[in-house]
């Protein structure tokens, strides 16, 4: 297990290098003008002298290869540079925002997995029943619904019509401190929406896996031996039925990141998603690079997690051989 993690970590180094290099290349090739992004609306009234001076000061005309190398060598010494568009050190940007994005994703993920498991098992126990048909069709509907649409719908229903949950932000708009109670109340809607957007996949996979397992010989044998239904379900069907879901957990990470991007925007959630968009459109190299690394690491870690879980739960797979 440690060997697997170690190997993957080594493998991650070239991947991160290539991905960041790619991000610099794409950003340099993008039509966005960093000077305009830096100056914001002020640029649209600025004279040439101002635009040229900013170009000079921001070092826009350096080649992206040189900038990438410069960024890499600084990053290795722990200096991630300054974000030009947010006018803050990159470490500060990430420090302020990452925790909120992580919290949002973690809560949403836990809810999606838990609820998906429950609904999937309930549906799989009686294939073709009313419950099964309801869960399945709901899953397909949700899968087709865009995240931002669900988000706006949720705001309309819970915040406007019923007035039971706040419509956005991390705390009440008027409050000037962040308290756990406030965050708990404010995270319900965004995390709920993000969970709902991820839910169909888990539900359908669980239903399929458990349904197949319930029809297999070992389960029929267990039932024939007169074992209790609960034992059969947990001991036999779930163990083999949930294996496909484990792979899913890792592979949903990129989806989760893009989903979080939309959800954070709709709910004014102060995470790194908003910063990512700004960094990309502003060709803010240092911030973009750092966020790219973060996303890459998240995806790789997700895959590693899936493999580890597989090795732990599937007797046919040996971690030592991976």
């Amino acid at each position: 297990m440690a060997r697997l993690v170690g190997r993957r970590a080594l493998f991650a180094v070239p991947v991160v290098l290539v991905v960041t290099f790619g991000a610099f290349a794409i950003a340099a090739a993008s039509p966005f003008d960093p000077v305009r992004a830096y100056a914001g609306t002020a640029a649209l009234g600025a004279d040439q002298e101002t635009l040229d001076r900013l170009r000079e000061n921001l070092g826009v005309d350096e080649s992206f290869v040189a900038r990438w190398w410069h960024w890499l060598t600084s990053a290795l010494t722990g200096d991630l540079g300054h974000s030009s568009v947010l006018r803050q050190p990159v470490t500060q940007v990430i420090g302020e925002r990452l925790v909120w994005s992580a919290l949002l994703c973690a809560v949403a993920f836990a809810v999606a997995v838990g609820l998906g498991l429950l609904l999937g098992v309930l549906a799989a126990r009686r294939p073709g029943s009313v419950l099964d048909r309801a869960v399945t069709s709901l899953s397909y509907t949700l899968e087709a619904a865009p995240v931002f649409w669900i988000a706006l719908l949720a705001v309309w229903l819970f915040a406007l019509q019923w007035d039971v949950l706040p419509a956005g932000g991390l705390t009440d708009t008027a409050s000037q401190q962040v308290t756990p109670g406030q965050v708990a109340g404010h995270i319900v809607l965004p995390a709920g929406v993000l969970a709902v957007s991820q839910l169909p996949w888990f539900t359908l996979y669980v239903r399929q896996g458990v349904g197949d397992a319930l029809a297999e010989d070992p389960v029929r044998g267990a039932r024939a031996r007169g074992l209790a239904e609960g034992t059969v379900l947990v001991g036999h069907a779930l163990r083999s039925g949930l294996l496909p879901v484990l792979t899913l957990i890792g592979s949903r990470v990129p989806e989760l990141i893009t989903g979080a991007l939309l959800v954070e925007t709709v709910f004014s959630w102060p995470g790194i998603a908003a910063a990512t968009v700004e960094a990309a459109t502003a060709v803010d190299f240092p911030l973009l690079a750092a966020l790219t690394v973060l996303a890459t690491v998240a995806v790789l870690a997700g895959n590693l997690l899936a493999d580890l879980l597989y090795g732990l739960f599937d007797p046919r797979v040996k971690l030592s051989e991976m």
Partner: protein
Amino acid sequence: MTARRTRWTRRTDRRLPIRSAAAAVAFAAGATACSAPSRGGGDGGAEAAESVVIGVASEPDTLSPLLGYGKDGNSKIFDGLLARDSDLELKPALAAALPKVTDDGRTYTYTLREGVKFSDGEPLTAGDVVYTYRTVLDEKTNNTARSELDAVEDVRASGDDTVVFTLKYPYAPFAARTVLPIVPEHVAGKQDPNTGDFNTEPVGTGPYVLTNWSKGEKLGFRANPHYWGDKPAVKSFTMAVIADDNVRATRLRSGDLDGAVLPPNLAATFEKDDGRRTYRARSYDFRAVTLPSAGQVTGDRAIRRALDAAVDRQAMVDKILDGAGRPAYGPLPVDDPWYERGIERPRDLAGAGRILDEAGWKPGSGGIRAKDGQRASFTLYYPSGDKVRQDHALAYASDAKKAGIEVKVEGATWEVIEPRMKTDAVLAGLGSVGDPDFGLYTLLHSTLAGDGFNNMAHYANPAVDEALDAGRRSQDPKVRAAAYGEIQKALVADPGYTFLTHIDHLYVLADRWDGLTTQLEPHEHGFASGPWWNIENWRPKK
């Protein structure tokens, strides 16, 4: 659960006499727009008036005046040497009085107000003023508005309380530039102005101090205990940053916000609301079509005059802006003191046709006129995603077609538009506040043709150049008024731009305060302007 719910119920509850669990019965709150309560426990109204939550569309990139924040005044964290009142008249702020102008308008001397302290308790000195201006003028500082101080040759302190500006040339509107916020040298001077944390943790002399800034979400402010002016009745306020118009309107309706900036169609939905008022701010914010002088068609004077006569400005105001705006007959709005009365002109399609006939533009195939084999046709770009500009562009094209001129409308990003500004028309939006020179010089002076985003039409008219120079040199209001009047008349005779509309900015706000006003606003709006431009002077309704 009841107790938790009350935190999210409508803020309007606070106007109810009894603030208790009964407040959770929220459905009654929207309907009862009672004024100050008359029974015991009656500070509900006053308490609600002490804190305000405002929804704005965008936030500043930085809160450091060294990089351009608050350069037009109205920053709540900082003060300039001067400030503007509701009629945009200059009044002293950190200066004790308006500046003494000597040396034929080339030396401006300011004496500082006594006893002013920064919010950290340190006194303000002339050194802080000098540091601020010198840093903004420094080439290495990434300030986007440095050219606005182009006239300054030198700034120096004379003693602790006097600051002397020396100008390169006589520049009448200079005093209006000194609304620029002053920063403390003992804080900002210790760091790099481009990247230091003064950008996010500012210290100033203004009526409020920043308590927290969650970028992309909100900024919180509370009253500055060291403020030199009267104590504000509004003790704390929050600016919530909500880019999407619909979400902003939604949160205003749910009671999460007390006020917000809104587009006309959404502001209209609050009209019947007793507990809220709509404020309409007039503005300098115009929409115009640039007609590049280099273009075969757009550079032709007859075409320019015909277009000017053919556009139906009133229809644009009514249809595109839902009436929230005014026809623009020139760069200055009709209620600006410098506006030249009498240049208003109705739509005149027949006149447009006559102008073109006389100039030899004869009707050709498809109803499009031509002259010497050149079709009267040009491309008009607008920044994609800006619906108001798109609507203006399409309306302009349809009006032009009626006069036999073909305008091909295309949306594009600024990256695409910028290299084409010299040859193709652009639907531009500009407008500066404070002095006619600020907006007009950069828009019209031939020496600035094609200089970045200055004079996008490459307009060149010697008489206009001369009047622009006279207007900025002379200190005599009569001479200046004559010069700016002449410029506006010249733009009618030889229009390098077709001015279409001046746009009103709309704000909806809970009706808990008395005597709120709006200023004439510049092109940028929402954060520093709106009814909250003077929030420190708001007083609760009696």
